[in-house]
């Protein structure tokens, strides 16, 4: 398993660390891991801004940025320079200290969350028991930073946007955590490394043993994705920013690099929560089929991450924004019951693992899928109520 290409970065780090005296080695090891995380994900942020603008352009039948360098690939550089040289304006009435601290409170905890995410075989900064808990704990401070930004700006749109954002984040954090709990429950560990390891091996010698290939895993991934999109304020859940109603919510009074930091924080949050979803349901850095294991593990991880990013860009280009009441109803009346039902389905799957009569797998599938599917249909019908779902009729058009 010690494929040198697969372990390239691990070996590189070991070699670099070995250059130093023994006393300094743990320190250098930590610094190297942190530096790698910051460098890689900040560059991914730059790449993603370009991808997003290009992708949205394609979806809206236009070209997107194409003036800076070939195909506009230098656009992130230009954006960065613009942000750095822009004047930083702080409103006179603003609470200067809190206004200054808000972007930092946003970015720093998000960066620490990467410490527990395994990005490849043996590629994790800190592997400890309780990784998932740590992830959600540091994610909780994002809400505080949004509030700080909204309140300190002394702007009613800021405050309104911040209140919306916090209400949304709190509401969607519950289904997000509950969707992840299914995996924690099945694996029996909070460590993300253990969770990824539990998905190693292949069904029938070729198909990966990912959690997404079980009924509760599939439902869990979908629920997780919806909650994750809301948690990082991506369309269709981007009402906290709602340019058309409240300008940009808590970001109204931010300019220059502080604004860029907020954006960085938001995108880093998206990458982090996507990585968590990959580790929980999609086998982390494992290859999907056994004959592709020769591709290095980090390539798989970042490939999946890019897939998630493209999905979010696609959603942003496709879906309209939800209304606040729709958003709240959806979280509390639909997502929360569904995640609870999914917990039952996962428990059923876990306890039926011992079944050994012929056709047991099919029965397990049927049982687990019914536990999720039947409430889904019932809940959907009950919530849709009298909404007419047939073809639309137009009054002034045919």
């Amino acid at each position, binding site marked *: 398993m010690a494929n040198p290409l697969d372990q390239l970065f691990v070996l590189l780090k070991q070699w670099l660390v070995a250059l130093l005296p023994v006393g300094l080695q743990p320190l250098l090891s930590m610094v190297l891991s942190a530096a790698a995380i910051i460098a890689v994900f900040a560059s991914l942020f730059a790449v993603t801004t370009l991808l997003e603008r290009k992708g949205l352009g394609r979806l809206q039948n236009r070209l997107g940025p194409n003036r800076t360098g070939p195909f506009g690939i230098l656009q992130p550089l230009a954006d960065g320079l613009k942000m750095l040289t822009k004047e930083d304006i702080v409103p006179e009435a603003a609470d200067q200290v809190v206004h200054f601290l808000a972007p930092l409170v946003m970015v720093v905890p998000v960066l620490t969350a990467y410490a527990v995410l395994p990005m490849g075989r043996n590629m994790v900064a800190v592997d400890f028991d309780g990784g998932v808990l740590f992830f959600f704990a540091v994610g909780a401070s994002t809400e505080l930073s949004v*509030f700080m930004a909204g309140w300190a700006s002394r702007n009613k749109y800021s405050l309104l946007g911040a209140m919306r954002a916090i209400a949304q984040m709190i509401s969607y954090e519950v289904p997000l955590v509950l969707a992840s709990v299914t995996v924690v429950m099945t694996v029996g560990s*909070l460590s993300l490394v253990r969770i990824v390891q539990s998905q190693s091996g292949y069904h029938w010698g070729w198909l990966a043993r990912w959690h997404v290939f079980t009924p509760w895993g599939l439902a869990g991934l979908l629920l997780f994705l919806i909650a994750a999109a809301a948690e990082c304020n991506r369309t269709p859940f981007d009402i906290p920013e709602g340019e058309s109603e409240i300008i940009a919510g808590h970001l109204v009074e931010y300019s220059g690099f502080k604004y860029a930091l907020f954006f960085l924080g938001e995108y880093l949050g998206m990458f982090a929560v996507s990585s968590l979803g990959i580790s929980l349901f999609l086998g982390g850095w494992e290859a999907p089929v056994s004959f592709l294991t020769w591709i290095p593990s980090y390539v798989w991880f970042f490939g999946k991450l890019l897939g998630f990013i493209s999905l979010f860009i696609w959603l942003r280009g496709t879906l309209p924004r939800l209304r606040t009441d729709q958003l709240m109803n959806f979280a509390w009346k639909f997502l929360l019951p569904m995640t609870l039902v999914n917990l039952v389905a996962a428990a059923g799957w876990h306890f039926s693992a011992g079944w050994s009569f012929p056709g047991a797998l099919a029965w397990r599938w049927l049982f687990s899928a019914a536990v999720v599917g039947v409430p889904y249909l019932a809940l959907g019908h009950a919530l849709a109520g009298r909404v007419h779902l047939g073809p639309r009729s137009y009054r002034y058009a045919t």
Partner: protein
Amino acid sequence: MRLTFLLLAALTLGSALLALSRRRLVHCALWVAVSFAALACLYLQLGAQFIGFAQVLVYVGAVAILIVFAILLTRSTEEPAAPAVIPGWLSGISIAVLTAGGLVVPILSSSLLPAPPAAPPMVTAQALGQELMTRYVLVLEVAGLLLTAALIGAVILALKESEGRP
């Protein structure tokens, strides 16, 4: 070890003091959040990982936000005109200190206290979960029931208010 403890203790106490003495309620709430976070660090320093992260998740993530919401929804965030320190505080503080001292000294000198273990046990989240689900399952269920009752109560309160409106 000693130094980190002193720093964290100073941070916890200092931010708690600031939370009590700041004039703006929102600043108080933010200092309370800092105090919660420092307390979580103290737990982590003691090796109690689960409690430490749960502290951040629940107190910084939820309770601080709840306090902030309560401040914003109920009263103005402007600075109040009344002075921060009232002369009556001096007697109040001295009575509080005396009472606390009167409780702490007998408790610490009591022979009923179990002797502290030589080495603190390292409790993993898994072991904690196992204990909660087996030995303390009844306590857990009762706590859950209490919280559910509070949740339903809150919903009922909100319902009545909306029914009263035209």
